[in-house]
């Protein structure tokens, strides 16, 4: 990897570090510690979901079939695509290629917002179908309460994930601005990339857990 001093993307060393490499290592580890807490943050909710799905498997399978598998698959493709553009953005940052960095950051934001757009459309369909948990929840079929519980989990899990996506898109916007001003640090892009990929990984698990419960029936 090129030393940041030789790169147009500058990376000033903070005084508490002895070398730039040590600072980069600390940056990376710090982000991984945060992601570890995020694993448990989502993990607790997913654990609760898995347990209730075991307890009410028939109702959860029925409720899962109301989710749109086509939009779910498209969202997966869009998000994996954004992970590719993010990886390319980090690559561009390491090479000091500001123009490529800007292009890939914009692509990442566009794909991220595309994901949120499809998600929003899905939420709108749920609203139209009266599948939002609460007083206006309507369910024709058995086990209405368990089906409502599934939808509680659906909105909590995807909502929390969407919130992370919004924050991620915001971070990319800040990086884009810093890049335009020529002040972006390579390792800021690197650790922001770690965050973005993590949010992608959360969706990798949410998609089969929520959308693919019992499709074969």
């Amino acid at each position, binding site marked *: *990897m090129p030393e940041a001093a030789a790169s147009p993307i500058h990376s000033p060393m903070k005084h508490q570090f002895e070398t730039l490499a040590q600072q980069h*290592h600390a940056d*990376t*580890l710090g982000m*991984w*510690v945060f*992601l*570890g*807490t*995020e*694993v*448990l943050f989502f*993990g*607790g909710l997913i*654990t609760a979901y*898995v*347990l*209730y799905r*075991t*307890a*009410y498997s028939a109702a959860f399978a029925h409720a899962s079939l109301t989710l749109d*598998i086509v939009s*779910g*698959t498209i969202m*997966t*493709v869009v998000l*994996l*695509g954004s*992970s*590719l553009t*993010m*990886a*390319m953005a980090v*690559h561009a940052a*390491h090479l000091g290629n500001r123009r490529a960095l800007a292009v890939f950051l914009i692509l990442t934001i566009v794909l991220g917002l595309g994901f949120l757009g499809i998600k929003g459309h899905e939420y709108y369909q749920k609203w139209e179908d009266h599948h939002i948990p609460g007083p206006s929840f309507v369910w024709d079929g058995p086990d209405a*309460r368990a089906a409502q519980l599934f939808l509680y989990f659906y909105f909590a899990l995807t909502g929390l994930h969407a919130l992370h996506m919004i924050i991620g898109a915001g971070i990319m916007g800040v990086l884009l601005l810093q890049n335009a001003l020529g002040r972006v640090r390579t390792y800021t892009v*690197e650790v922001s*990339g*770690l965050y973005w*990929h*993590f949010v*992608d*990984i959360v969706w*990798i*698990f949410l*998609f*089969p*857990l929520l*959308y*693919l*419960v*019992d*499709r*074969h*029936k």
Partner: protein
Amino acid sequence: MPSTSTYYKIFALLMILAFATTGIAFIDLGIFNPIVAMLIAVTKATLVVLFFMHVRYQGRLTFVFAIAGFCWLLILLLLISTDYLTRAWLPIPGAIPPMGF
């Protein structure tokens, strides 16, 4: 750091796995449906962590930090399962039903 061609290859693999998981969901494998779906998800996550998140190209300390959250999650899942999934095994008079509302 990996080359861009590595990123494209990993992305292609991820795409194949994404469509595979959707496709396999429509085939009746009985109890293996959720197991296969989770195996594919873990494979995809591993590819992202190793290549997109550069864990493969960094020191062992980064690897330990990256795997730590996952290990704690396994402990969480395992210990909670020993409670909830075994409650129905022994009939205990007056016991609370496993997952009542």
